[in-house]
């Protein structure tokens, strides 16, 4: 293989410098590794015990992360991937790039979970968030929302994880009636944004009454900003789940270290960091319990979730239904 001399030199130097400590490369999405995410605390905690150097490689979001894993293929320097969800695991399994994680099952999920390749590390319910003062009586179901004149902001399922989550939510709750629900929702939708942050930012600026986010979103405002004005509305149909998972890359040259990291990720130290950095529920409830403030959040009675295979099979048709209903 032809190699640029400079790049080779740089790689050599890096190898010499790093000969003593093994490097564990963790591929994750941007906000996980950012200084406000769980990344820095987890890196510090794991490096204290592993005698290794943990490096993050990032992509924009879960979907971009999987795209990057696929682009790099077997040549990837990555050892562990953190931050895919159930809408992506079918494609991730099909890529053949992942190995069994070998960890015991997690206990904090509201649904049964069994997957030899993908280990959940956090989860959350999708929900519509509103301001309690401005909208004291939010709709109590998707159908009631569709029938109301409440204005909502949602994300595009073709570019955003929550956006796809809502499409799956409607599909899981209404099956063949999904197009009808979307048609009824059309006049409630102010706009569809490319990602979560645009929609959430516009909601905070008062562009709509409700925004598609997570039941845990009000906890951020409560804990980080001492602001209890936001709430998520419980919906009668139940709430669709997002389960975020981690996996071991089959091409990893540090499989044992990778497994140790996965064990650390679902262990007490990392799990107690996740609620107030990733603003999601931990996959294993820490010994000290959930942070104060999480107790005020709504607890949906019913959780909806398609299995990885179902989600993989349904996704394209469900997004097409969404698109057709809203393009009219």
């Amino acid at each position, binding site marked *: *293989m032809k*190699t*640029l001399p400079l*790049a080779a030199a*740089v*790689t050599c130097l890096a190898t010499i410098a790093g000969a003593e400590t093994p490097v564990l490369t963790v591929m994750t999405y*941007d*906000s996980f590794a*950012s*200084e*406000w*995410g769980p990344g820095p605390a987890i890196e510090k905690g794991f490096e204290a015990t592993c005698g290794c150097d943990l*490096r*993050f*490689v*990032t*992509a*924009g979001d879960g*979907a*971009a992360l*999987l*795209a*990057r894993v*696929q*682009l790099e293929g077997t*040549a990837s*320097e990555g050892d562990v991937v953190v931050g895919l969800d159930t809408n992506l695991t079918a*494609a991730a399994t099909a890529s053949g790039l992942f190995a069994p994680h070998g960890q015991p099952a997690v206990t904090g999920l509201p649904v049964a979970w069994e997957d030899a390749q993908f280990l959940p590390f956090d989860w959350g319910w999708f929900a519509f968030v509103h301001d309690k003062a401005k909208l004291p009586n939010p709709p109590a179901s998707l159908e009631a929302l569709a029938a109301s004149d409440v204005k909502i902001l949602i994300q*595009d399922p*073709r*570019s955003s994880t929550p956006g796809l989550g809502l499409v799956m939510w409607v599909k899981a709750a209404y099956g063949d009636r999904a197009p009808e629900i979307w048609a009824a929702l*059309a006049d409630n*939708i*102010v*706009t*569809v*944004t*490319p990602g*979560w*942050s*645009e929609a*959430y*930012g*516009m909601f*905070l*600026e*008062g*562009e*709509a009454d409700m925004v598609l986010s997570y039941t845990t*979103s009000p906890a*951020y*405002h409560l804990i*980080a900003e001492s602001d209890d004005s936001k709430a998520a509305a419980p919906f009668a149909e139940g709430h669709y789940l997002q389960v975020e998972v981690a996996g071991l890359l089959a091409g990893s040259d540090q499989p044992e270290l990778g497994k140790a990291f996965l064990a650390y990720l679902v262990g007490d130290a990392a799990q107690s960091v996740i609620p107030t950095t990733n*603003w999601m529920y931990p996959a294993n409830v820490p010994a000290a319990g959930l942070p104060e403030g999480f107790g005020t959040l709504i607890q949906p009675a019913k959780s909806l979730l398609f299995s990885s295979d179902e989600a993989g099979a349904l996704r*394209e048709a469900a997004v*097409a239904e*969404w*698109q057709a209903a*809203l*393009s009219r």
Partner: protein
Amino acid sequence: MASRAVALIPALLALIVVALTLGSAAVTAVWGGGGGLGPADWAALRFTLLQAALSAAVSALLAVPLARALVRRRFAGRGLLLRLMAAPFLLPVVVAVLGLLAVFGRSGPVNSLLAVLGLPALSVFGLHGVVLAHVFLNLPLVTRMLVHGWQAIPAERFRLAQALGMGPGPQFRHLELPMLRATLPGAAALVFLLCLTSFAVALTLGGGPKASTVELAIYQALRFDFLPGKAATLAAVQFALCATVTLAAMRLARVEGFGAGLGREVEMPAPGGWRRGVDALMIVLAAGFLLAPLLAVVWRGAPGLVALPSSVGWAAARSLVVAVLSAVLAAVAALVLVQARVAGRRWAELAAMLPLAASGLVMGTGLFLLVQPVAPVERLALPVTMLVNATLALPYLFRLLLPEALRLEADYVRLAESLSLRGAARLRLLVLPRLARPLGFGTGLAAALSMGDLGVIALFAGERGVTLPLLVQRLTGAYRMEAAASAALLLVGLSFALFWLFDRWGARHAAA
């Protein structure tokens, strides 16, 4: 021998640009296999064309009276207004959208005023919202291009016209219309091409999947469906469109030399009466439309500026270095290609305009595939970003320089030849001083655009090498909307400072 080698430089440069744009798409296509287009893709193509055509038409139509008013009227703060008005174009798209919403949104002052007057609320979501945002972003650019055009009409011509007793009408027909015919098609084509690759504006303000653009389809193909082949097919469609529009604009634009003047500052006659009122109204309305959203951005971001995390400093420094280097790179490349185009090589123009239709995502993916087997991508994140940003800025610089360069050639070529003024001396004594104004403006623009660009770095960045736009995105992703607004304000401030510096350099070194 040496002169032949020098003559090859533009061709080499054009080849590099083609490799970076078409080549990266080809790599992506080869890697992913081809891919067919579905009905949704064709609907996206139709919407893309419609919104781009409307945005270009409205921007061009508004820019003509606005630029004319700005050229012929003198008022306090005119210079400041001219510079400030360039700012919307320099805004990162997401910041611009939030600024527009703060003014035209549901709880903005425009709707509050309408409510007080008992009028129905105005929604900015839909096709009109997309066009509004594109006009907001691009009107300043077209206006500045036209202002340059007007300023390039020799002052002597206006004096002659007045001496001949021409009124505003005949003066427009004989002096200004030829200039517009040379400048406006290129400017409108530029806006059209810019809007062709619009993604975030169209989606955020479009109101739903009706407003899907080709760029969104590319994003979906690449990120969600993981069909790089399809993404490359869509990119090829964009290229074809770009080439068609560029060729059409080249045909439409006719350059007419005015004959050389002494290069004095334009003293365009400023007729009184109703024309004065119309000019004033045009300036006030445009200033309000362009500056109010900016003010909103400052208003939202200013309170949190002092509380920004320390990582912002490093990110800002990184962004500044990348921005300045890529702008200088783009400026040199544009000068070389413009000279080649002036010498009659039309392919130079096509090559220079190509990057406009390049999808940043496809270009990034192609480069990623090329770089990855050679070296860890994080190490090359900043150099690659620099190269891509320089490529993406090339069309603007080229478009800004070309009309001036052609006029220069038409007016001075015989004189220069008779003086045997060639090569470096010609560049230094004739070309650079005459082109300094658009060159400074264009380089400033390139620096600011690079500063605000998120596209490629997001694909390459690792833990280190975070730039300011990426940091803004990370802040918004972590619920920190206020800190993000402040970081965005810092980004806008730095972009604008860079632009201002280069623009002033241009104005100062312009032949007086």
